[in-house]
């Protein structure tokens, strides 16, 4: 029950953030995307760094993930 309430709260927060994001959209046209198309503006620009970091933090902290799915499990003691 408590988990369900938490889930609802998180979903509400997600929807709230989504509406903020959508509300701020400014319709960037394809010919206006020279900055957004740059390598350093991609969400996976640091893919190898973040994947190595995720593995380190997964084995040293109590929570992990969130960005996407990490590749491969580990025993990690």
């Amino acid at each position, binding site marked *: 029950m408590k988990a369900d309430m*938490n889930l609802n709260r998180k979903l509400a927060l997600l929807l709230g953030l989504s509406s903020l994001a959508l509300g701020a959209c400014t319709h960037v046209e394809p010919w206006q995307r020279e900055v957004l*198309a740059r390598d350093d503006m991609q969400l996976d620009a640091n893919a190898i760094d973040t994947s*190595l970091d995720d593995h380190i933090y997964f084995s040293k902290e109590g929570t992990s993930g*969130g960005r996407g799915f990490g590749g491969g499990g580990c025993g990690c003691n």
Partner: protein
Amino acid sequence: MAQDDKRIGASLAAAACGLLGSAVPAISRAADPAGNWDIDSAFLYYGESDGRVQDLSLTAIAVRDYGDDRKLSLDGTLDTLTGASPSGAIAADRPQTFTSPSGGGTYTTPAGEIPLDSSFHDTRFALNASWSQPIARLYTWNLGVGLSSEYDYQHAGVNSGLTRDFNERNTTLSMALAYGMDTVRPVGGVPIPFAQMPDADGEDDGGEQANRSGSSESKDVLDVLFGVTQVLGRHSLLRVNYSYSDSSGYLTDPYKILSVVDPVTGEPVVRTPPPGAEGPDGIYLFEHRPDSRRRQSLYGELRQDFSGKVLQIGYRYSTDDWEIDSHTLEGRLRLPLGSSSYLEPHLRYYTQTAASFYRYSLAGDAALPEFASADARLADLDAWTLGAKYARETAGGSEWSARLEFYHQVSKPPAQTLIGNQSGNVQMPDFDAVILQFGYHFKL
């Protein structure tokens, strides 16, 4: 009511943005010639202070573009770990002797020091492959498989995701599922929960020791992720993910133990091994965690360009039914140095609350709790990472990079788990680590 308002607001915003939508290309990097491999490789050294865990790791991610947004991605990692890891036992005023996990012998921790299990060593292989392609206008689908192997741990997983572009491809919604099956084969066998650490049998043959219930256990992990990526302007991009993770099965760490202590003083209870036997000189019990864990997290990431400088800010909130709540805040700022190199400082802060069953130790006269673990990773903890990356592009279009970071972790047991005098002399396995990485990015 407020939630309904937000939902209506989101729907209106989506509808308003949708009205202006038309078929235009998605955000994409400058297209590489089809058929080429784009390879990102790295060598990583991770080293903890005081002779604890050291890791050498080689990783490569290779992406091949088959044109029309059809891509194959392969990645492989080889890890070699050595060093010592905290066992969960508390530091004491006298030296403490423990049986090694294999049962082949004992090791002794000097007085006043945190007990570390130095038999920790491992080599890990991981391989992942994924394929992505458009399946209809505005829809992209991907499918991935992954495997990893250590001498005592195997993982196999599948994942699949679907994305849909909206709003002139200014908005992307995504959904993904992942399922993992893991098997653990602990050295010496699977410990019986809360059974006592046995005496050594003197044989380092990896055979099953006393107080074990078999040779292997398994766990399953299901992950679900929903994400929104939104272009906020010509220089700015936001991603928000909600994810849900359900783990079930063997979630206990088979190598972690708890010290049984005097209920008045909080000092470890003394035990004398039988004549002629080698074994622990205290009472140490194998830990026991719940066999399920449900976790939710919300992750947001903003990328903002300031005339060529790129700021990346990420935040994650995570909560679970083990009562570990965490906040992670991190930032990177990419500063171009001329036209072919950049410097990127990185700062990260992490904080978490303790698991409900985390204990610093167990009182000798009290009934055993349903679950208990003294693993410091389940304690209240804070961590900082500070570092920077430098990268330089060669005349041929390849890029090499070097990254140096420092990690500092401080943990503390919740006051209610302390017994007797422990509040005055608690020692936690705080540590510092250095992360050094060399990378090379090239095309074949």
